[in-house]
């Protein structure tokens, strides 16, 4: 079947009518000739009983955003399971450096108050306070995060009060996150809550002066398998100074100085755009959406960054590095392209990767025919211009919005951050580079399907319909596709591979993909005696 023949109705035919209606609003087929993106429903509640791939608010807050901050201890306040499940599942790499010695790295450990029945009945505040005391006494961390899980919200423990008292007692920041899993509709709510608290409690508290002519933060990069390190190295080679990645291999001591940079680079738009935006409001820091997944994407991103600073030397060095890296990777990449060319793929990951990896696959000559996010919002599909038209509902209203004003002392006009004229800056904004994200739709192929919050059942149906050569997904549906004879690549932890970013990462990725596509095992599944029978008939 070619992509254009697919009928969306068939896909959801088995659902009860109400569910069918609901799900159809989450599925959009790209129609090139129609021009702009039709509205897709996103960031709304999952229908109960439909087996979703989504996680919870706590997973987004602790698991994704705050957990990887390496020099903070993140305590999960709740029963044991929630903490267990968010322990080391994301392969965020962290290492010691000149500011953070190895004994101050806690991101690989798991801390839980392990609530028992009596705590549920009588409240867990005392237990939490005691746990903070012990953690301070044993580890002496620089700062502590406390994340709550579902039952906590219900029994009404006052996280803020416990954190405040502990902060006074121990003289270190203790930051509360009311990220009970039932808030919002997915991980996304947790990203937002984490962004808010980091913005309120950490960013802007640093007073050091940073060295460097061109200083950037790399926001929304989680250093899975070392992705962030590759980007950092490339940027530093060109002449930038990376103050902090957020939050892969990040440290509290660096996040405090986030406001001291010239430019924020945004890799994962979904999880971190709040901080990018809030920093622009409060400090005037401009932000640029970049993507270091894919060769072409990396080149474009590097050029965009150089343009933001407009320094001729920087631009020249950027080109030099691009040329050198391209020369280094092209011959090997060509080998893998031969295997990958013309193959099709699905991409169902998170809230940004499903878009990012389309670039890398295109570099390899592959097409993504179906793509979707687990927990994205409409702007991640349709572009940021739709934000003013997104209706807020009861679930979004539950997440507090911070209303920030420009900081009277630290705010500087965005163009001054970049050391350029107002006109030049406005030009960059108008060209759609600064402060903008176009979403996934423009990069989908004609007839391709965008599907939001795809569930277990739909994934199976889609595989049957499209018979793709490869599926990019999380581990939860990895084995479904294997059972259906389609190789899959786990894009949350990379199946213990990576890094996949920038030039050399693309080669590693291409090698992994070529291996998956060409493993002889897939062709040997049908036993020879059955093969000959089918041949005979």
């Amino acid at each position: 079947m070619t992509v254009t023949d697919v009928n969306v109705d068939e896909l959801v035919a088995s659902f009860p009518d109400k569910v069918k209606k609901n799900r159809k609003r989450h599925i959009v087929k790209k129609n090139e000739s129609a021009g702009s993106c039709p509205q897709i429903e996103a960031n709304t509640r999952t229908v109960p009983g439909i087996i979703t791939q989504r996680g919870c608010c706590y997973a987004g807050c602790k698991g994704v955003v705050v957990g990887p901050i390496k020099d903070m201890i993140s305590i999960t306040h709740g029963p044991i399971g929630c903490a267990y499940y968010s322990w080391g599942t994301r392969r965020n790499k962290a290492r010691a450096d000149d500011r953070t010695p190895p004994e101050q790295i806690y991101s690989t450990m798991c801390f839980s108050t392990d609530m028992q029945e009596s705590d549920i009945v009588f409240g867990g505040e005392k237990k939490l306070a005691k746990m903070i005391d012990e953690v301070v006494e044993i580890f002496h961390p620089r700062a502590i995060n406390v994340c709550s899980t579902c039952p906590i919200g219900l029994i009404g423990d006052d996280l803020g009060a416990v954190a405040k008292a502990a902060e006074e007692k121990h003289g270190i920041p203790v930051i509360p996150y009311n990220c009970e899993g039932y808030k919002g509709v997915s991980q996304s709510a947790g990203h937002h809550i984490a962004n808010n608290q980091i913005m309120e409690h950490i960013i802007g508290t640093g007073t050091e002066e940073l060295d460097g002519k061109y200083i950037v933060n790399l926001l929304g990069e989680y250093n899975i398998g070392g992705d962030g390190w590759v980007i950092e190295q490339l940027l530093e080679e060109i002449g930038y100074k990376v103050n902090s990645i957020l939050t892969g291999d990040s440290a509290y001591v660096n996040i405090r100085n986030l406001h001291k940079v010239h430019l924020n680079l945004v890799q994962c738009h979904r999880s971190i755009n709040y901080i990018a935006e809030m920093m622009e409001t409060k400090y005037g820091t401009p932000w640029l959406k970049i993507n270091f997944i894919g060769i072409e994407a990396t080149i474009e991103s590097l050029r965009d960054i150089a343009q933001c600073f407009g320094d001729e030397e920087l631009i020249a060095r950027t080109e030099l590095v691009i040329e050198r890296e391209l020369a280094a990777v092209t011959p090997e990449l060509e080998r893998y392209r031969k295997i990958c060319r013309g193959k099709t793929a699905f991409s169902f990951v998170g809230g940004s990767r499903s878009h990012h990896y389309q670039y890398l696959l295109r570099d390899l000559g592959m097409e993504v025919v179906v793509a979707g996010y687990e927990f994205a919002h409409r702007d991640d599909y349709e572009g940021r211009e739709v934000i003013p038209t997104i209706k807020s509902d009861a679930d979004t209203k539950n997440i507090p919005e911070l209303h920030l004003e420009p900081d009277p002392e630290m705010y500087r006009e965005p163009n001054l951050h970049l050391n350029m004229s107002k006109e030049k800056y406005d030009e960059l904004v108008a060209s759609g580079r600064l402060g903008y994200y176009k979403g996934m739709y423009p990069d989908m192929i004609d007839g391709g399907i965008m599907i939001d919050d795809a569930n277990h059942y739909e994934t199976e149906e889609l595989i049957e319909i499209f018979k793709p050569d490869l599926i990019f997904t999380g581990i939860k549906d990895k084995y479904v596709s294997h059972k259906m004879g389609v190789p899959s690549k786990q894009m949350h932890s990379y199946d213990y591979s990576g890094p996949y970013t920038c030039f050399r990462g693309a080669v590693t990725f291409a090698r992994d993909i070529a291996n998956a596509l060409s493993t002889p095992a897939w062709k040997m599944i049908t036993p020879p005696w059955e093969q000959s029978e089918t041949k005979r008939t």
Partner: protein
Amino acid sequence: MTDCTVTTRVRQVNENQCHMCMPLGGVVALRGVEHSIALVHGSQGCSTYMRLANVEHFNEPIDIASSSLNEKQTIFGGEANLRKALDNVIRVYQPKVIGIMTSCLAETMGDDIERFIETYKNDREIREIDIIPVSTPSYNGTHTEGFWATTRAVVAYYARPTERHPGINVIVPNISPADIREIKRILDLMGLEYTLLPDYSLTLDRPFGGRYQKIAPGGTSTAGIARMAGAQATIQFGLTCPEPLSPGLFLEQQFGVPLINLPLPIGLDSMDLFVRTLHDLSRRPVPESLVLERGWLCDGMADAHKINAGARPAIYGEPELIYALAKLCMENGSIPAVIASGTQNSGLVGLLQPLLKDALEEPVILEEADFVTIEEAAVRKGANLAIGHSGGRYLTERQGIPGVRVGYPIHDRIGGQRILSVGYTGTLAFLDRFTNTLLEAKHGSYRRLRKEEMLNKKGVSNAKA
């Protein structure tokens, strides 16, 4: 007699824990019932996390539905969502059995699941689908208790007074699908008719072939479970199973089926006990092939005993498994350095004491342990092997103690579902992994250690200095 040091947790901190949450174990057990699907009543995060944990261990698709509770339901109750969830699960998956496990949230809200189900079934006029509620508040127990509670709930749901029959019941704890298959093979060899529960040997380890089905074929049939009430006896590998959760005890008390609680058949003695019990029940001779297998195990034990005598394993995980492993280690002269479980009240200490009373060295026994406590004890006691699930990777990474993976969950190695440790053959397979890991560590560092011992840093012999 050496007094074992027994420690239960006194600290508030649980760092790097050794146990997981209650519905997780329930989900595994339910997979052992034919045509079933699990639904966790709570926010969707719990289900997603449990799918993740199980998928990583079994390397299989795992469907766990959720009632996806949101903020509103925390105030108004979760009935409407649960009904919607049931509607959709039934429509899309067409299960014959639905097990509803509760998350901590639902338990804290105090939802009356039994009543919800009753009204739902009446309203929808559902007769063909069995909906079984299991209360699984994780602040009350770990995945181990969740597994037992669910198995018991399933038995209690189906078992009815039945005519006596010569078949037996076999109830297994959370072991690997490969272990279940081995136990079934032994039962077949002994010529017994049996109902094994929960039998997830096919559902959680699905072979390739045939069209992919949304609910995996396999599992104990509900008709079989109903017949358990009339069996000649129940063999339950549940020495550490708390009485109120014991499926075997339920059958004994309600239907008079005698309960024979045995240790998991890992190790020569435990396996002999199992075979002797089967022999008594079937009144048939032990087949020659099994005798051969026993012989190979004995031979292997004899060949490796010198090496194994140098082992000081730290054993950790679910109580039933670690008891069996401790016993196996003792009979091979490997005195455990640490024996640790994340659960409490399993009676493990009382079971271990007679086993360890003549040990030359004194092991540390930990209950409600986390990995910080285990690590500390392992280092203090000079452990040189870490036996258990993936949590032990910290013992390897931080302390250089080599690991042998067994138990649940295993997510840093492939094939958790295929690890075989029961029976004579399985024991030998385990023992070989055990011995070879010791040897590998020894060969890996032998030269360096000897060199350090004989020569000083400058390469001059220590003997001269």
